[in-house]
């Protein structure tokens, strides 16, 4: 009894101690973030902020206020790489207008129990990109103009992606190497491909499975692919409503799929899609279930590679396609629905009638405190790889050349990262990274010079 009372008092005192900090209009968000402690709330007044923001405290809520129709707008002006990055667990990022960033609009890296809510993100390579997270929610956001995916959930488990709007992206919403996650009640239209679930080779997570895509509106995703020519997103064919690539146990049900010129639903194995090559993963689709969807005017004007693929069969008006290699899969075929490659699909019999309200866990998941070394790696992946690859020039010099230049001098490298000075006219100017904070920059510097590819 005494222990219970002590615990209750401790919890109460912690919540009482949580502060609310306010960022005054047009001032530095990062300066206020630096003052925040675990559990605090940061309110950002409407205004224009040309900044990148990095949060690595735990359980921080950062909320853009809306007053008289004015929003907190983060504008990278195509000079900065990332809008808001959260490395701490329990992050809540809510209510911002984010535009003009070259890399990520909003990113969480290794953050569990996160919530990304009610943001409007324009442009960027990835609009909203939670990665390596567990138990999260992406809800009520609008994303547009992403050169890869508007919402891109990577290598995460137990994630709900609900009630978002995605238009004008290469992929509207993508789950990559995710497990036990849900896409529901989203409205995706005018993208190259609407909803995409993938198993990408070579990544640390070698499976993708148990995903439910239900009650989404997926309309007219026929936008020409505008991803950079050499990126994997450039292989996404235009005109697909819902695309499954190598993922197991996907349920596609109760969706409204209309006006997608190539296909309502396309199911591909990695080999046929041309992204094989990881022997540790199974590249074939297993356990796909498709039922109770509404199909209107899909597959009416196939183009590009899918047109050629469908033409090989001599059919037209194909609405659902599989490369013929999906296993243990089923379909309830509505009258008039034209399919190709689904001969080995059975009729879904006793399919699971669960409504799949949520994939999130009932209680927050345990969230380990990351070591400095882990933070260095996570932030390197989130921030540095946007412009640097290891053994080649991407935008900035290769990491191999940086290692050769600095040797083991982590102090000088950290100083440079904090306040870079343009050294070669052949490279663009590197944005200041001081927003990451001294501890994180030291961790990154140590990772680059003492660990990376050593």
């Amino acid at each position, binding site marked *: 009894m005494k222990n219970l009372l002590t615990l209750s008092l401790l919890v109460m005192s912690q919540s009482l101690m949580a502060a609310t900090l306010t960022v005054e209009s047009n001032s530095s968000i990062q300066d206020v973030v630096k003052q925040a402690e675990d559990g605090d709330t940061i309110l950002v007044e409407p205004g224009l902020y040309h900044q990148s923001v990095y949060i690595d405290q735990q359980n921080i809520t950062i909320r853009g206020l809306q007053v008289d129709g004015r929003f907190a707008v983060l504008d990278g002006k195509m000079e900065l790489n990332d809008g808001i990055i959260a490395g701490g667990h329990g992050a809540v990022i809510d209510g911002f207008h984010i535009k003009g960033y070259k*890399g*990520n609009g909003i*990113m969480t890296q*290794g953050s569990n129990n996160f919530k990304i809510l009610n943001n409007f993100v324009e442009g960027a*390579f*990835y609009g909203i*990109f939670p*990665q390596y997270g567990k138990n999260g929610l992406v809800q009520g956001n609008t994303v547009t103009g992403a050169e890869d995916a508007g919402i891109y959930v*990577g290598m995460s488990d137990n994630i709900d992606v609900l009630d978002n709007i995605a238009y004008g992206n290469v992929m509207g919403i993508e789950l990559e190497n995710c497990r036990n996650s849900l896409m529901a009640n989203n409205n995706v239209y005018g993208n190259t491909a609407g909803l995409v679930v993938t198993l*990408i080779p*070579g*990544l*640390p*997570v*070698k499976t993708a499975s148990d995903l439910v895509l239900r009650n989404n509106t997926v309309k007219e995703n026929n936008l020409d692919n505008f991803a*950079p*020519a*050499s*990126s*994997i997103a450039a292989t996404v*064919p235009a005109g697909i409503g819902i695309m499954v690539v190598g993922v197991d146990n996907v349920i596609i049900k109760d969706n409204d799929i209309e006006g997608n010129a190539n296909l309502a639903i396309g199911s591909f*194995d990695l*080999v*046929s899609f*041309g992204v*094989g090559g*990881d*022997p*540790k993963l*199974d590249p*074939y689709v297993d356990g796909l279930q498709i039922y109770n969807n509404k199909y209107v005017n899909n597959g009416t004007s196939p183009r590009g*590679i899918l047109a*050629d*693929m469908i033409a*090989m*069969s001599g*059919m037209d008006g194909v609405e659902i396609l599989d*490369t*013929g*290699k999906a*296993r243990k899969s089923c379909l309830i075929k509505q009258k008039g629905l034209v399919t190709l*490659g689904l*001969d080995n699909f059975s009729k879904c019999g006793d399919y699971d009638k669960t409504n799949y309200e949520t994939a999130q866990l009932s209680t927050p998941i345990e969230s380990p405190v990351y070591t400095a*070394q*882990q933070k260095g*790696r*996570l932030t*390197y*992946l989130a921030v540095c*790889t*946007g412009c640097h*690859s*290891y*053994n*080649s*020039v*991407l*935008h900035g010099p290769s990491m191999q050349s940086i290692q050769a230049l600095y040797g083991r001098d982590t102090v000088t490298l950290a100083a440079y990262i904090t306040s870079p000075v343009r050294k070669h006219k052949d490279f663009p100017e590197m944005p200041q990274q001081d927003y990451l904070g001294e501890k994180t920059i030291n961790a990154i510097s140590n990772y680059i010079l003492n*660990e990376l*590819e050593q």
Partner: protein
Amino acid sequence: MESTFESLQTQKWDVDKVGCGAVYAYEAASQSTFDIELKLNALGAQLNYFLVLEKRYPALYEAGELGQKLNLRWDAARARSENLLAQSEKFDFIVPEVGALKSIYLLTSTLKNTAMKKQLQTLPVARDLMKEALERDSQVLDGLGHHVMAKLYVDLPVFAGGNQALGLEMYETALASQPNNLELVADMLAGYLAKGDEKRQKELITIASKIDTSTLNKQDVVDLYKTIGGMASRLGQQDAVEHFRTVRENLLENNPQLLSRKATAVLGHGGNDPITGEDPNKL
């Protein structure tokens, strides 16, 4: 010059040397009008070069300086191959290897630096060329034709002429006559993975672990052991994984010129697991 390019062809860890070999081969072949064997060997050198180049491309994102350089080399190899084929096609009526090599050229030259649409369009053409070559000589290219045809049947979508059962049958026939062909076994593994036949996959992994690799190209062994070992890892065959890992690591340690093919991170993807620091693709 011929012996030079033959020697350079084997140095698969060095894209520059293999590239030089491909150029030497081309120049030697171009100096002769009627030496069809020389021309086909030169074409084979280009195909070998494509496969070496292909492994140098980054896994996920091919932009930047490296991707551009590789594309330039790829285009040059393509041009040489096209010229060699043009020089060789007059011999097609008597030499079935011409059609077979053209098929393989279509398949290898479209692995990279090629629009997906073009890749797809070449597959049935490659299939038909190889089919015809096999009808003329069932052992064309010392059994390689049979191997390639099997792979095509397994990999092609069913509505594009793919036939998994036939492909696997062809693989088994090929294995019967080439029991020590490690690359064949690796491709068969992929075929049985497509079928979902774990039992046969495990048998093939055991077969692979017993193949004598002492006469094989060391870079090929390093690469194939990574592939087969990865598949063994997925199937839980830890003894096999240990075998492939040990042999591979010994090769890499004793032959520092060999490439380990470790992938690195780009654009927020790939590289080591940031939580554990481990390479997720190592055996």
